[in-house]
């Protein structure tokens, strides 16, 4: 009891442990598992990442004007939902060309608001995907 009594008293004159976060940003370690990066030019559209992703946060959905890429025979476009991703980096391990086509950056995900429609939008994409299968 008296040690914590004394500790409380000395803490009064110490600099608090608190970091001033929103004002001074936290520097993330190089190996921090953040957002998944995607290089459209290097992608070979093998869809291994889509199959490997446990929650299904990567979808290749056919669109009208697909990105120009010789490997892209079915006219697919890469979609990634950071609000569904569980950041396990299984897709990166599944990717045959990691670091060029798919990589894990150390950027933290941004905050979304209601208008971003993170959930409903993804439902529509999934529906689209199912229709095409």
């Amino acid at each position, binding site marked *: 009891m008296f040690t914590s009594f004394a500790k409380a008293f000395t803490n009064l004159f110490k600099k608090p442990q608190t970091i001033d976060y929103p004002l001074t940003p936290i520097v993330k370690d190089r190996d921090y598992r953040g957002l998944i990066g995607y290089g459209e030019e290097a992608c070979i559209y093998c869809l291994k990442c889509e199959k490997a992703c446990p*929650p299904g946060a990567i979808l290749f959905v056919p669109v009208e004007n697909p990105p120009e890429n010789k490997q892209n025979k079915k006219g697919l476009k890469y*979609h990634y939902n950071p609000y569904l991703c569980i950041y396990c980096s299984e897709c990166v391990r599944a990717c045959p060309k990691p670091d060029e086509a798919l990589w894990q950056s150390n950027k933290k995900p941004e905050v979304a608001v209601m208008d971003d429609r993170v959930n409903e939008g993804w439902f529509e994409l999934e529906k689209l995907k199912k229709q095409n299968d």
Partner: protein
Amino acid sequence: MFDLKKYRKKSPWILHYNAGSCNGCDIEILASLSPKYDLERFGVINTGNPKQSDIFLVTGPVTYRSRERLVELYTQMPEPKVVIAVGSCTCTGGVFRDMYNVEDGIDRYIPVDVYIAGCAASPELIIDGIVKALEILEQKSKEMEKPHKLFREATSEGGIVNRRHSALKVGEIDEEN
């Protein structure tokens, strides 16, 4: 009288409910109250009482049993209030998407204002989300969720009823909608 609205963002009291998450985000909420991140510097108090809270922090993909309690807590909170979905599974169902006892994300049940990604959402992201929520809290009207208002809002152009049927944003960055 001077504008009381601006004080909303200086004193957000939070209510935390776990609607079936894996605990990861819950312990990170506790960690963000701890000395290193110290949410109290924004005036945050963890009240645990819905009647005195402004920000509703929800974790978890909403299991079958917890949904009633979730809506009950939401309705018990006085206006203006902000709902934050903490973590991937709260936003969209995450890894629990399509499991039989889980609804995919809490926005199936209550309107969510801020989505925090991450599995588990780190205290840093939770602070980001709360800072964002404070802006929204300041804009919100005190009378917002009175039934007639709600109805008018929902059926208006750009309201939640119309928006549900229109096109989407996430993942379609270069889409005109």
